[in-house]
């Protein structure tokens, strides 16, 4: 033995120190990644919210150099919001009606979610449980719409809606969306998970199909129904291209169109754009935060992952 071998105790101590060091390095990189992700995904959101609560000139004044002042209003004001809601004199003069646009959007989104819950549930129950000649062909007909790209057919859709005579009405914003292949697919996956014995027992007891659906299927698929409703709500709330084309009247303007028209105007008022963006996104963000637990469970259960 030319080299003195370290004692056993020292060896253990050294490997423990190494393990500790490795753990510290691991934590360091995790924290670093954590900070980076938070910065990338939250900074734009925080900038939007902070800037909506300050006068536009303050946005420009503190943008450079970057510091906490870039994000936190020094002169706190609700003027931007008063403007876009048409409460302030300036807002009225510019014809801003974000309140109306919000109500329109809330109405249309609720109407679509409500009607789509009824019709998609019926159709999903049909595909999950009922017998019908050539049912597979019908399923192909429904799933085939997946291959019909929405944005690509929006112009032709407008031509059809115009021919039917309800362009530029609330119907134009609601009717095309009352059924969705995606929702039918996901819901029927959920329904298939429910044991068949439950509805068979109910049918032997003399229950009709509708009451089986109401008393057996729906109560057992609450998470699924909630998940698709949430997705559908944010889908309709965030629609832009279709409402832009289907409606021209200002009384029918939805919130996303109201936000977008602000930036295509000649003079861009930053504060009002930020305020409009906050108003357009906060309701959905809050809804998702409130229902997040169910939503994550729903996505995991729905087989959405493929």
């Amino acid at each position, binding site marked *: 033995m030319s080299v003195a071998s370290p004692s056993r105790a020292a060896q253990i101590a050294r490997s423990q120190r190494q393990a500790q060091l490795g753990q510290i390095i691991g934590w360091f990189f995790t924290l670093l990644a954590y900070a980076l992700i938070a910065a990338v995904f939250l900074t734009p959101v925080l*900038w939007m919210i902070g800037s909506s609560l300050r006068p536009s000139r303050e946005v420009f004044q503190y*943008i450079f150099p970057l510091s906490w002042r870039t994000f936190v209003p020094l002169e706190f004001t609700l003027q931007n919001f008063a403007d876009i809601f048409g409460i302030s004199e300036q807002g009225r003069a510019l014809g801003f009606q974000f309140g109306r646009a919000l109500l329109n959007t809330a109405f249309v989104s609720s109407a679509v979610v409500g009607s789509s819950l009824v019709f998609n549930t019926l159709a999903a129950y049909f595909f999950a449980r009922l017998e*019908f000649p050539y049912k597979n062909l019908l399923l192909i007909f429904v799933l085939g719409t997946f291959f019909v790209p929405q944005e690509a057919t929006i*112009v032709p859709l407008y031509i059809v809606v115009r021919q039917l005579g309800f362009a530029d009405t609330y119907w134009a914003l609601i009717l095309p969306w009352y059924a969705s292949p995606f929702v039918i697919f996901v819901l029927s996956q959920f329904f298939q998970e429910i044991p068949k014995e439950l509805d068979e027992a109910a049918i032997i007891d003399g229950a009709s199909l509708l009451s089986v659906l109401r008393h057996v299927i729906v109560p057992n698929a609450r998470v699924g129904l909630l998940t698709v409703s949430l997705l559908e709500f944010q889908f309709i709330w965030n629609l832009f291209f279709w409402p832009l084309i289907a409606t021209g009247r200002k009384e029918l303007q939805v919130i996303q169109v109201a936000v977008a028209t602000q930036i295509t105007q000649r003079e861009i008022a930053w504060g009002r754009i*930020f305020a*409009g963006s906050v108003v357009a996104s906060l309701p959905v*963000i809050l809804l998702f935060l409130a229902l997040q637990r169910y939503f994550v469970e729903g*996505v995991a259960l729905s087989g959405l992952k493929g």
Partner: protein
Amino acid sequence: MATFASRSPSWWTFIQRRKTRNVIIAGLFVLPAIVNFLIFRYIPILWAARASTWQYSLLGGYRDWIGGDHYLRALEDPILLKSLQVTFTYVIVKLPLEVALALALAIFTNQARRGMGTMRTIVFTPVVMSMVVVSVVWALILNADSGLLNALLRTLGLPKQVFLSNPNLSLPSVITATIWKDVGFSTILIVAGLKGIPGIFYEAAVMDGANRWHLFRHVTLPLLRRTLFFVVVTQTIFSFQVFIPVYSMTQGGPLDSTKVLVFYIYQLGFRFQDMGYAAAVSMILLLILLLISVTQMRFLRSNVEY
């Protein structure tokens, strides 16, 4: 015997009638959805096919039937060629970046460490914001004079950039904004996929002496195949239909560097009052998407088994 013979037909018709009745009732469950898809998803395609063979505008109505002239014109339209180029570049650059980023984020946030749920929520926030709000806010982030990104560049001592008016930077800017918005959705799907991989596979691999890279390469990736294909297929279809960020950030410019197909269709139909040609270009986009989805589906089917 006589009684049986006389009773048997009526009994048989009773069953028959009951069966017919059940089929009719079942049909009623799915009828509303079928009607919706027929009118709002399939008929527009037929309508577009028809309109594409006419000189047709919303204001002027149908004028002359011109057969395949619009399609011949499309073959020689330099703007359409440019637009196809821009759209394919957008998809080919955005898709791999987004999926790779989503995979990294999913693996990172799927660790059993504190705060990872919060991290997933942060990454998911842009997903529930509307594309309009995201593009409007990113247009201001990328603003040449007072944008947040240029403030960051200047703070770091780098020269400022005119992101949206430079034809070399405009498309990358749009891609960045849309990845920022969409990556959270892919992340959630991949997290759901990761949670579906039984831990025993990892334990077995570790027993066999696998390191982290081996685990990722030989356990995670193969078992995530279905999820990843699902993400790629859906994101391809969505990405080909990009419209809103172009509409609100660049209006297709500068020098047509961001003129994606759907934006070109919108311009043709609604700005240039050339709805017939817009319908023809819609049909071309439809055909491209159909070809891509069918190819991907075949690929998906042949790769499902592992």
